[in-house]
């Protein structure tokens, strides 16, 4: 009899890695996000796709008619639109991932109290973080696919390697999303959140997005090369024409390290925020 009572009123502990942080149920968080996004936010989703296309038309075709051709990654000349298109794809991967992992997370964290509710269930902070990041990546993958298709239609793709721009964009988005979420966990006010835009806009304008890095004096070149977006821009530009060098690997490694650091920091921060 005691045995029956005992089995009713006591729980078997699990021996899972990261016990109190992770319950192996990322899928529930992910599918919640899909459901919520499909229900309410699809207009924002569409606008996120349209924005880089508008840039491509305005800068690539408009400005491009003045610029003409420009030296591509291998040195051979390509159309200006084909030069900036991969860069815009990298920017859109960055923007999407950063929006999802900063403003969106900030709101859910501080106002909607969504994570508070989630963490009163079997979910751990790591389930929540990974689920939200995966969601950002799904969105990033959709944008990347759409934008690559537009590039194809506009005749800006010259190599089959260009298809790899889609997974590469997801890797870029992953780096920004995991880092963005960690940074957002430190933010307490809207004023602090504005700092994110303050960093993003110059990065977008100056990461060799619209012209080659060589226009800068050397110290500034070094600085730009330390920033993540430059690595993303260069990686996608090389994939678009199918010309690679030893630096291709460096760009990839840069993002892998960024992803790893971001995840470690995010988990640490979520633990601090929610298990205080």
């Amino acid at each position, binding site marked *: 009899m005691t045995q029956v009572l005992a089995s009713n009123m006591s729980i078997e502990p*699990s021996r899972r890695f990261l016990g109190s942080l992770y319950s192996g149920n990322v899928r529930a968080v992910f599918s919640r996000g899909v459901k919520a996004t499909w229900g309410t936010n699809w207009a924002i989703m569409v606008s996120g796709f349209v924005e880089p296309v508008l840039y491509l038309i305005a800068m690539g075709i408009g400005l491009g008619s003045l610029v003409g051709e420009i030296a591509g990654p291998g040195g051979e000349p390509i159309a200006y639109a084909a030069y900036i298109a991969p860069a815009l794809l990298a920017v859109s991967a960055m923007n999407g991932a950063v929006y999802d992992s900063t403003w969106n997370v900030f709101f859910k964290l501080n106002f909607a109290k969504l994570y508070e*509710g989630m963490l009163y269930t079997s979910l751990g902070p790591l389930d929540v973080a990974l689920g939200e990041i995966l969601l950002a990546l799904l969105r990033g993958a959709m944008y990347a696919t759409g934008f690559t298709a537009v590039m194809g239609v506009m005749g800006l793709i010259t190599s089959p390697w260009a298809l790899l721009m889609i997974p590469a964009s997801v890797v870029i988005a992953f780096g920004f999303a995991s880092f963005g979420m960690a940074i957002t966990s430190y933010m307490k006010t809207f004023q602090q959140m504005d700092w994110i835009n303050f960093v993003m806009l110059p990065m977008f304008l100056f990461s060799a997005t619209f012209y080659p890095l060589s226009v800068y004096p050397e110290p500034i070149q070094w600085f730009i090369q330390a920033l993540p977006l430059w690595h993303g821009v260069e990686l996608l530009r090389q994939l678009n024409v199918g010309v690679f060098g030893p630096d291709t690997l460096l760009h990839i490694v840069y993002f892998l390290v960024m992803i790893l650091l971001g995840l470690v920091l995010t988990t640490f921060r979520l633990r601090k925020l929610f298990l205080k």
Partner: protein
Amino acid sequence: MHNSTAPEFVISASNLTKKYGDFVAVDGISFDVPPGEAFGLLGPNGAGKSTTMKMIGGVSQRTGGDLTIMGLDPEQHGPEVRAHLGVVPQQDNLDEELKVRDNLLVYGRYFGLPMSYLQPKADELLEFAQLSDKGKARVDALSGGMKRRLTIARSLINDPKILLLDEPTTGLDPQARHILWDRLFRLKEAGVTLILTTHYMDEAEQLCDRLIVVDKGRIMAEGSPAALIREHSTREVLELRFGSDRNATVGAELEGIGERLETLPDRVLIYAHDGEAALEQITARGLRPITSLVRRSSLEDVFLRLTGRSLVD
């Protein structure tokens, strides 16, 4: 195999302490809750009730002491412990981006429960919460009482053995409160252990088998509502009004009547076993109060006696 951890209590706290820097929110409290009990935590704002609830849920780490929920430490085994908990937080944190019924389904998914279980369970809970016709409504279209009922329904999606309710009826109108009490009572009858914080004394008297009064992070008293009234108050209370300017001065003339006398700015309270008899003594002394009222002692008298009348912020 002998299970040595077979607990007779579903919650066991001993010397539980929580500090935020220098501030001591919970100061070494101990209590045990047997299965099926409705256990209340009473106290003024900032007494440490919500912090205690958070530690039970494993979402706040204690600074000291021991805590086991159904035999496990919620800090070490958060996900497993919470699989058996239902939580109704002080402020509704429903998912505003999802429809009413989806709130239940998605929340159930967080526990890893299969849809084949969740679909009928969600309908059952909507009915329980009297929200059956609102399943497809948006959450922000619900009234305060409906949201509260949905939050409670959501907390039951995993068939919890323990339900944590942090001020479940604060901000609700009387009708909504009574409906909620009725629902909570049914859960108690079904064998769910209820842990409840409140500062409504009538709520505590209605729902709790046993309660602790907490102030400044410490337990001031413990027992059933009736036992606490017996121990810390008299059977009846006589409330007299002599007018604001006279209440204070008349106090001296009332000495010796009843067990205890309390002079407030607006009235004088006399704690006595027989209120009518005390009133007769007063009129015999030639005192003429403007109004007089004899009532039964309530938990509120106990609460105010133990935690004081001054405002705590």
